[in-house]
């Protein structure tokens, strides 16, 4: 269980996150939703241990210790060296983290990533797939994906969602996916956290929110934003 309490973040005078609380039980999948600038990436970076919160805390229970080794983070931007082949990316990460080689190879195969092309020679979709395969190959307790679907065509989006939410899902790990593609992804969420201007707009079990607002998560967000 990950318990986030009243998290806040300021960059200078600018507040980017304010009083954000949620919990994520082990094995569950959280959809982190909201428009650009809502604070999704900042929240993910705090959870990844890359930036400290200005306020509040992140607590871990069930024997999970907060530790960068326990968190696999896939940033939004292409963050690999341009000359890397898939195997180079793997050995680089294996120097720092526990990695599952079989899962990496299976993920590359499932996602049809060319093995003998340098990172810079891959298409945008394939660069994302290679970075995803690395993120999924980590032996982690918490997986964080920051907009892995942005700029990806619809067919490839489904394949990416299938890989991260079903095929390579570890049963006892927790997952957070930040995305704009709400309608496509909403059937995959156990829980949802919707941010608006750094504050919580909606938070809770996806099914409860859908029923409470009588519609899809997307409609729930629209209705909640109007109130």
């Amino acid at each position: 269980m990950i318990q986030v309490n009243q998290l806040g973040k300021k960059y200078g005078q600018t507040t980017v996150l304010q009083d954000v609380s949620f919990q994520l039980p082990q094995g569950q999948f959280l959809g982190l939703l909201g428009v650009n600038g809502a604070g999704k990436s900042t929240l993910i970076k705090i959870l990844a241990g890359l930036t400290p919160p200005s306020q509040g805390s992140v607590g871990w229970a069930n024997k999970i210790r907060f530790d960068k080794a326990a968190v696999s983070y896939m940033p939004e931007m292409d963050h690999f060296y341009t000359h890397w082949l898939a195997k180079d990316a793997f050995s680089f990460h294996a120097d720092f983290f526990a990695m599952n080689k079989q899962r990496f190879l299976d993920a590359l195969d499932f996602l049809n990533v060319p093995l003998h092309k340098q990172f810079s020679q891959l298409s945008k979709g394939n660069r994302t797939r290679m970075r995803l395969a690395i993120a999924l190959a980590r032996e982690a307790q918490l997986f964080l994906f920051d907009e892995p679907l942005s700029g990806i065509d619809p067919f490839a989006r489904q394949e990416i969602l299938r890989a991260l939410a079903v095929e390579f899902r570890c049963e006892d790990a927790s997952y957070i996916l930040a995305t704009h593609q709400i309608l496509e992804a909403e059937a995959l969420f156990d829980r949802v956290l919707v941010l608006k201007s750094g504050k919580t707009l909606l938070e809770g079990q996806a099914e409860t929110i859908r029923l409470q607002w009588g519609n899809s998560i997307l409609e729930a967000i629209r209705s909640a934003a109007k109130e």
Partner: protein
Amino acid sequence: MTDFDTNKPIYQQIAEDILKKAVRGEILPGDRIPSAREYASQKLVNPNTVVRAFQDLEREGLVVVKRGLGNYLTTDTTRLEDARFQLAQKTLIQCAKDLRELGYTTKQIQQLLSQQLEVMK
């Protein structure tokens, strides 16, 4: 799932999907049904949601979970027939409610139904 109904819980829709396949004969009594993961991958839904749907089906005696072997549709055809009847009832109740809301009387609803059935012959 790209084609889910936004007004019903997803686990309920999954259970109904399996049930409909069974009453239509696409899955036969005693047939293996997909594992939660296979089903989740096919339909792109949360595996946890599928597990919940399958647990409901197991509780109702429609699906038998054989540990380590997989999930199977029950061989108890009476149960399947009951489930089919319940689905029919649910549909009828919804239909009757909707027509009542439009202000039709019981007699008019009966007439409308038989006219519609005549048209659809």
